[in-house]
């Protein structure tokens, strides 16, 4: 049956001056504005950290290159990693959750709008503080500038003796601030999801994105204390003279690694699950079928969350744990691969028997599926401890985690962008520019990260600012650099697209993709109040029920 046409609203022309609009953003507590602010700021940091990556790749393009001094290079990879995880990944998740969850559960705003605003500004100040380190850290004796200890800042390199100046302190303090923002946002999303659902929306009728955001935010609550606690301990070591990680006083350098990765591993699932959420919303709509195995998807995600807190030492297989310890963490890591694989199969099952439309959101999803499959398999390889002893701390791991974080996470987020931009802005992103973005990024991504797996096989360790010729790494690195430049161009295209389409994009109605969840029943962009009256739902796909009254979902669920 054909889609019901809903009359297109006229897109509101901005009548306020620039100062008025900026002021509006500063004082807003509206979840939609804050969501877009989170995402917009994250994209800004993506560009900055991405430029650092380009710098890194240009330095490594040829052996014994003199483009970047070692200290500059070391700061680049530290800032690149720290920014990408904490100033790009986490705020995108917060932004996505804050924007979409109230719309998807049929309510007016988050449970704590002012807390929402507080969280955003804490994140922004934390991010600015991190970059301020370039200016503010030098202090006495010229030591300082940005942190250069790597994004996971292993002890004792971060001790006062080895990290002179205040650059490490900027790393600690800025992340403590952003962690407050993330925690607060997590509490808000959880409270909203549990307490503000519209009538009829039982937990097992929520859109999968809402479920997955719920799991993610619980993980944030449980994982972030690991990082914050360890960072407070490090501050105590560096200032009042504590000995948490002071090996001279009998302290343990390895315990930093344990604490960090107790945070760090759930963190990477915290990043991944929202990308899964985007996929779980987009693939059904563009395959024209409901998600295959909804309850299993919920269960598998919960299992991933649970098991992921028990795998952390698989980042530490070379640290010298006993064979029993190594075996335990290998087993738990293999186990977490199972629900992850099940999710891939369920997406596959959704597409199977469908009528797949290759719009841009779906193209990014398809690329995600191939890339996440490979990423998951290289993860399984890394779980094989003896193989790990060769591969850890080499470019194989770099390739693996970029496969997950760029090839899966970023691709999933891009799919979400192309899917929800029309809802947020009222206009489509330009599909031709979108295709350029897609293909440039896919080609560049594979040029860079496929080849870097092999650099790892050939013994190239990570975090090195240069390498000698004759190790077999020259050509691989050169190709990887070419790929990086491709990806940078793709991001430029995306940025142009986002800006241009805001004014010039093709008008989208309420429901441009013929989708089934509640956000598509409001205007694009939604009015401040979201819904004039609170909707009532009877199934997982309320708009399907509306569009197909002769064959509603609630008859089958």
């Amino acid at each position: 049956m054909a889609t019901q046409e809903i009359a297109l609203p006229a897109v509101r022309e901005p009548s306020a001056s620039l100062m008025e609009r900026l002021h509006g953003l500063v004082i807003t507590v509206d979840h939609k504005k804050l969501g877009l602010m989170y995402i917009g700021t994250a994209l800004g940091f993506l560009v900055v950290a991405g430029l650092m990556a380009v710098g890194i790749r240009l330095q490594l393009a040829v052996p014994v290159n003199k483009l970047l001094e070692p200290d500059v290079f070391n700061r680049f990879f530290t800032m690149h990693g720290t920014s990408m995880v904490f100033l790009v990944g986490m705020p995108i998740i917060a932004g996505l959750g804050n924007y979409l969850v109230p719309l998807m559960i049929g309510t007016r705003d988050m449970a704590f709008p002012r807390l929402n605003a507080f969280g955003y500004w804490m994140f922004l100040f934390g991010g600015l503080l991190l970059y301020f380190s370039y200016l503010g850290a030098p202090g006495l004796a010229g030591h300082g500038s940005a942190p250069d200890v790597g994004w996971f800042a292993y002890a004792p390199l971060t001790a006062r003796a080895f990290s002179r100046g205040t650059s490490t302190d900027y790393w600690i303090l800025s992340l403590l601030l952003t962690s407050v923002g993330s925690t607060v946002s997590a509490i808000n999303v959880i409270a909203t999801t549990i307490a503000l659902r519209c009538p009829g929306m039982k937990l097992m009728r929520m859109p999968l994105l809402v479920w997955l955001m719920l799991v993610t935010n619980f993980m944030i609550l449980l994982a972030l204390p690991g990082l914050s606690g360890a960072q407070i301990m490090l501050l105590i070591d560096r200032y009042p003279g504590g000995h948490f990680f002071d090996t001279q006083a009998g302290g343990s350098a390895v315990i930093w690694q344990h604490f960090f990765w107790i945070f760090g591993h759930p963190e990477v699932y915290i990043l991944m699950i929202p990308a899964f959420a985007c996929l779980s919303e987009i693939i059904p709509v563009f395959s024209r079928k409901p998600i295959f195995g909804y309850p299993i998807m919920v269960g598998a995600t919960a299992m991933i969350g649970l098991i992921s807190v028990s795998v952390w030492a698989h980042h530490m297989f070379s640290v010298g744990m006993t064979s029993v310890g190594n075996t335990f963490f290998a087993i738990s890591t293999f186990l977490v691969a199972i629900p992850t694989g099940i999710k891939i199969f369920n997406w596959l099952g959704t597409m199977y028997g469908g009528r797949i439309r290759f719009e841009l959101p779906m193209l990014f999803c398809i690329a995600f599926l191939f890339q996440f499959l490979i990423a998951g398999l290289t993860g399984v390889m890394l779980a094989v401890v003896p193989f790990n002893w060769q591969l850890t701390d080499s470019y194989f791991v770099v390739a693996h985690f970029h496969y997950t974080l760029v090839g899966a996470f970023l691709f999933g987020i891009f799919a979400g962008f192309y899917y929800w931009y029309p809802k947020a802005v009222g206009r489509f992103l330009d599909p031709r520019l979108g295709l350029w973005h897609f293909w440039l990024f896919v080609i560049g991504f594979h040029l860079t990260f496929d080849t870097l797996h092999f650099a790892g096989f050939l013994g190239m360790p990570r975090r090195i600012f240069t390498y000698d010729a004759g190790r077999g790494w020259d050509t691989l690195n050169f190709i990887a650099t070419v790929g990086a430049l491709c990806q940078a161009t793709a991001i430029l295209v995306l940025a142009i697209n986002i800006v241009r389409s805001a004014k010039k994009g093709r008008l989208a109605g309420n429901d441009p993709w013929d989708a089934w969840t509640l956000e598509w029943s409001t205007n694009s962009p939604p009015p401040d109040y979201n819904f004039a009256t609170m909707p009532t739902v009877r199934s997982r796909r309320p708009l399907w029920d509306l569009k197909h009254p002769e064959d509603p979902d609630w008859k089958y669920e």
Partner: protein
Amino acid sequence: MRLSLYANQRTLRAVIVFAFSLFCFIGFGHVEPAFGKNDGVTNIFRPLSQPAQEIKETSFLVLLVCAVIFIVVAGLLIYAIVRFRHRAGDEASEPPQVYGSNQIELAWTVLPILVVFVLILVTSRTIADIQNRKAPPGAVQATVVGHQWWWEIRYPELGIVTANELHVPASTGDKRRPAFLKLQSADVAHSFWVPQFAGKTDLIPNKENRMWFEPTKPGTYLGNCAEYCGTQHARMLIRVVVQTPEEFDRWVRDQQQATSVATNVADSRKAFFANSCVNCHTIRGTSAQGKFGPDLTHLMSREMLAGGVVPNTADNLRLWLRDPQKIKVGCLMPNMQMTDTEVDEIVAYLQTLK
């Protein structure tokens, strides 16, 4: 109105084939030529020692399993994309709305569990085999201490202290002489990685780690520090010189000698001892007993300087002494502000430390 971007099945297929071939070409095109060459290329799949050999065998099994999984799942994905894509005539209808299937879910849960079970068995067996190895009577025992950005190497039983270049004898069928290393750190965390010999093991202060390897072919093999340890982490290179048992014994005897007082360089000696070199460096048999920097007793027996950064030649020695920061910026040997004459004299002296 809908946007339909791909109606062309051929284009889609061509792109997939192209992408896959590109992937294979890049990958195997660059690992493949490395097979069979040992000059500086440290391919983990060209092991020249245990346990790297056993690791390679385990990894090939795992690679095979993963390749099979990839082909099956990717194949299904490609099939789904091609077979179930929207076609021109489909405009009006929605496909059958299938919500799930418990049998299928069970099937694709049980299969991965079986695969995981096999992997667990393989993994735990290899872990135990490698980690629980004990040193046989003929083993060479060495202690490697990581410093910011060089390796201190001690052979306690042989009374030798050297730096950056680890000498071990090759094992033969009847004379097994594996090398058993104790790994310690003097400052931050490092990691010892010689890819063709063994996996990497970290050097962590206040924690002694053990590792072993057993090379069989004489030659010089490269490795790197594999745990970020500060500014010059990239230039903390390892050289393992595998020698025939006779050559190794000769090397040990040479290294055990304290330095002789060569008479013709008395003046140059003075320059060394007048500067503060003795505060950081040891030359056995002299009053230089500094512990902060590398032992220089047999400096000339090494191939490289500065932790594997430049070849050990008189010119490079001169450059290093003039300003170490020019060769290895950030390293912990400061510019000693010596005159050219002093530098020449010290170089002359160091050249006698064979």
